[in-house]
């Protein structure tokens, strides 16, 4: 698709979504020498801040919920904070804001991320004491509730955020229940085997972990405060605080009906981070990055992925910034990121590189599961595609290198100092492409 206007260097770049991806793109644009107008639009009233500490040290160490990200002084950004982007006109290259402003753009980066999936029944979700956690305001609501020593905290959903929150509760000496519908916690990211290991760790720390269980209903007391949940199997669990941790919903509603290819999985873009139109051709000048993007990952045989992790938000935004300045496709680069994440909970540092959830087999490559210090490798079609470390982060870079060079699975023994490996099923649900 020839788009003559994209050959002219941009003089106004607009970023919708002022968080990790938006700021990372802005920093990169300036590093690359872009000196034109740079507008960042964010519906939250805060400058870009970091989310991971909000489910970790901010709660247990009672630190301020001000996790504002460091910003170089010379970014020269035209901030539009506390105002949402409301729509885009792809032909006129104009973005409309909720306050009535309209901004022309040469390049637009869509980085509107995700929000916490709410409890599906609105009347129950609005009960006093039913919270979610995604942003600073959520953390500000949560901190005093936890400080008030609730008798029992009940967490709906045993994903990363739910488990990290449970870990914080235990560190604060609070009784806590996790209700998770899967057979193991964090199964989507860790698989059956490591998930089962984590279930043991979580229970050892005194968490009442209910697996294969589903909350049917949230109940309030006469004063309208949360009192209990009723499970599908009829069991009732009394609690004073509920945190709904059911994952995230992508912020794409504002883009619907405008000609862009959006779905529940996000805004479709290509490997160059260019946002796609309904006919799968790139929308002129429009890019996407971070949690909102739904994109083809080379390391995953080109299958589409959404990666809701910090590392991808930074890297994809940096690549989008590069490609926004590249002119045409010949100057653009492919976002060939190897997804990675960390989590810390129950005294364990969990780190992963690669997309473990598309693995067929796994093996323990270093350390021992019993000793709670190990590194697992994951394989698909005879290749090593991911590695996950539990309190063994120092081994990870060597395995990242093996994955990047497409090493066989299991990796050749002796390539890294390791015991003899036994292959097992990885235990992920079938891959969703």
């Amino acid at each position, binding site marked *: 698709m020839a788009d003559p206007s994209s050959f002219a260097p941009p003089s106004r770049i607009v970023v919708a979504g002022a968080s990790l991806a938006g700021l990372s793109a802005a920093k990169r644009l300036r590093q690359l020498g872009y000196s034109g107008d740079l507008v960042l639009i964010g519906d939250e009233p805060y400058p870009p801040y970091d989310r991971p500490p909000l489910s970790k040290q901010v709660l247990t160490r009672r*630190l301020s919920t001000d*996790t504002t990200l460091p910003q170089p002084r010379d970014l020269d950004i035209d901030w539009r904070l506390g105002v949402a982007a409301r729509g885009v006109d792809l032909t006129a290259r104009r973005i409309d804001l909720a306050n009535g402003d309209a901004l022309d753009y040469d390049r637009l980066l869509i980085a509107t991320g995700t929000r916490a999936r709410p409890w599906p029944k609105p009347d129950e979700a609005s009960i006093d004491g039913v919270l979610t956690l995604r942003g600073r305001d959520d953390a500000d609501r949560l901190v005093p509730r936890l400080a008030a020593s609730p008798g029992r905290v009940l967490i709906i959903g045993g994903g990363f955020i739910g488990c990290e929150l449970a870990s914080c509760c235990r560190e604060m000496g609070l009784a806590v229940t996790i209700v998770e519908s899967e057979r193991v916690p964090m199964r989507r990211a860790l698989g059956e085997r490591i998930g089962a290991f984590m279930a043991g760790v979580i229970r050892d720390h005194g968490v009442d972990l209910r697996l294969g269980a589903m909350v049917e209903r949230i109940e309030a007391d006469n004063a309208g405060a949360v009192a209990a949940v009723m499970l599908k199997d009829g069991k009732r669990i009394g609690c004073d605080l509920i945190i709904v941790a059911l994952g995230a919903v992508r912020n794409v509603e504002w883009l619907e009906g405008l000609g862009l290819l959006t779905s529940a999985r996000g805004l479709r873009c290509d490997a160059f981070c260019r946002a796609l139109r309904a006919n799968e051709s790139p929308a002129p000048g429009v890019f996407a990055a971070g949690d909102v993007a739904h994109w083809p990952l080379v390391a995953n045989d080109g299958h589409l992925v959404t990666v809701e992790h910090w590392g991808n938000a930074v890297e994809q935004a940096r690549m989008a910034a590069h490609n926004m300045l590249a002119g045409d496709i010949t100057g653009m680069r492919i976002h060939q990121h190897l997804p990675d994440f960390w989590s810390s909970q129950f005294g364990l*540092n969990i780190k992963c590189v690669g997309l473990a959830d598309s693995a067929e087999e796994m093996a323990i490559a270093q350390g021992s599961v019993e000793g709670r210090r190990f590194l697992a490798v994951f394989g698909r079609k005879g290749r090593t595609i991911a590695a996950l470390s539990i309190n063994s982060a120092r081994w990870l870079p060597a395995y990242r290198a093996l994955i990047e060079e497409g090493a066989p699975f299991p990796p050749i023994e002796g390539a890294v100092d390791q015991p003899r490996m036994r292959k097992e099923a990885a235990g992920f649900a079938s891959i969703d492409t």
Partner: protein
Amino acid sequence: MKVVVDLNRCQGYGQCVYAAPKVFQLKGSEILAYDPAPSDQWRDEVERAVHACPVRAISAEFDNPPVESASTE
């Protein structure tokens, strides 16, 4: 002052903890916890931590530019 650590990159060796113990702490054997908004009184320590980190995982900014909010709140 604002601090962020790229914890994908961090190796948990703890040099930053020696440099700025009020801001960085190791929990368990290798979990790095840090104060994202430490007091400016630790500026020198944090600067030392930034330089001590062998994988350059720490970013800090000592004087954030003021940001105006378009909201009426």
